[in-house]
């Protein structure tokens, strides 16, 4: 109940933000009875209505994971973000090995297995993607 109410509130805030930005859309020079703003207005309106209805009729959601799981998801997110940012300067192999080791460890906390998985995945996939499929990735930046 509580989760859905917070969600509904979030929807209303984001939809309002969207609506505000929709008002800033410049008017075109062509004659067009609908214009560039109408459709975004409709979309924002439907979202606002849905947000309000979710607050009024919330679902019971009991399937929330333990706080520790969020910690793990946070680590996975950070690892993937760093991967995205380091792929260009450092190439495919090292960043992908690091993120694969972290993801593997998050699922099964066995560091030896994680390192073996990470290294074999990054080198194996690099060979497959680069030479097998010809994707043109850089090995080390």
């Amino acid at each position, binding site marked *: 109940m509580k989760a859905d109410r917070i969600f509904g509130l979030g929807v209303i805030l984001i939809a309002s933000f969207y609506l505000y930005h929709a008002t800033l859309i410049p008017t075109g020079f*062509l004659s067009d009875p609908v214009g560039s703003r109408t459709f975004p207005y409709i979309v924002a309106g439907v979202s606002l209505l849905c947000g309000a209805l979710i607050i009024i009729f919330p*679902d019971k959601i009991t399937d929330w994971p333990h706080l520790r799981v969020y910690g*793990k998801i946070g680590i996975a997110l950070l690892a*993937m973000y760093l991967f995205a940012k380091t792929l260009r300067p450092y190439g495919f192999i090292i960043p992908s090995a690091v993120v*694969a080791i972290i993801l593997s460890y998050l699922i099964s906390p066995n560091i030896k297995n994680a390192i073996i998985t990470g290294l074999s995945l990054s080198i194996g996939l690099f060979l497959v993607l680069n030479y097998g499929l010809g994707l043109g*990735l850089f090995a080390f930046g």
Partner: protein
Amino acid sequence: MDLLANLSQGFAVALTWSTLLLAVSGCFAGTIIGSLPGLGPSNGVAILIPLAFSLGLDATEVLVLMTSVYYGAMYGGRISSILLNIPGDEPALMTTLDGYPMAKQGRAADALVLSGVSSFVGAFLATIGLMLLAPLLANVAYLFGPSEYFALYLLAFCTLGGLASKNQIKAALASAVGLGIAMIGLDNQTGLPRLTFGELALMDGVDFLVAIVGLFAVSEIFIFIESHGKNTAIGVKLDKITIPVKDIVNCGFTMLRGTLIGFFAGILPGAGASLGSFLAYMGEKTVAKDGDTFGTGNPKGVAAPEAGNNAAAGGALVPMLTLGVPGSGTTAVLLAVLLTLNITPGPLLFEERPEVVWGLIASLLIANVVLLIMNVPLVRLFVKVLSVPPHVLLPGIAMVAFGGIYSLSGSSHDLVLMIVFGLVGYFCRKLGVPTVPIILGILLGNNMEDNLRRAMIISGGDWTYLFSSGIAIGLWVAAIGGFVAPLFLRNLLKKPKPKI
């Protein structure tokens, strides 16, 4: 005669070595993806899209590869349903009801072979149905103007969230979110930027491939982390594989009935394979003399939903190819493939790009034969794949998704956006917000708006023009019905539970 000429043209395209190789690899990869618990056809196609584009294949080849993956995943879904009682994807859910009890009685191999044959019957006949029906529907689509297309898109949104989602409000919200994202970028008509929030990178809009891979594949990573990869199949054993001829003969009519129901359920925009397998199962349960033994390991309870869901997969291609409106989540992803290839589905596709349509249909027929061979004698191989530990599988999925998207755009901005979509997808799943309407919104948003604006320009701003033809009114009524009906039908259509 036209049909045969078109089909022979299709086979000329599909029967080249390179296309055949793509069909076989697609079927193989698809069956593996479909059989892994949790990874359905939408995820499978989503993960492989960027790779397919990076290979520099032509339009027909990409389509052959992706539809083979799609059909393969539909076949593969049954493997974990039968052996683990965990559906590989949502449409395979009904197969658990009798498939798993059969496996518990020591008849796992029989159930796998029977379901493989049923999948073949369903998918093969549905492909023939697609061949016959799609050109007819394409002719009807010539009657469509902007107001009809606008109503048709609305129908797709109203029904797509329908039965698949538990909450209509959240399904509507998901559609609005997708449509809202589609508005970001340059306005098609004025060429002026809209809703870019001052970000230069958003001027081109949000690439729907990035959204699809994020919402489907990356969110799956978070779900895996949450479940610690519990859905594993290590230790699954399978006896000697023989052909259960008696069961197959007994289930002959069951398969045909399942196919018919599934095919038409698949054609309905948004209903998709889940409804197809559900209706096929429930229909057979009512019709069969031994209907009361359904849920205890009755082979008919395996044959019906498998024929139904694979037939629905073929049926769902009908509205996607002829009207540009997908009939299911996976066909929404396939629509993204078409649009990226600059192929606009619709009635003109049949005239302008016959090699694409008929090549695709011919390769679907070939893919089915390949899949039958793969899924009956070689089923043991796919059962082995089930035992890949999740701590290897998950990072592998992540790397393929990242590598694919990066090789397409070479932009770290797209990768970050994909991660954001992954997080959004995770919370959507937790909150019960369906993700498919979001994808559909991103895909169809600009077309829907263009048709609305065109209708208003034609009518000089008269909104009643949207209801000016019989077809448009019919579509509006169907859309409202499709949105409202699940509210009443949901209790009626509760999924039965296995009896043991």
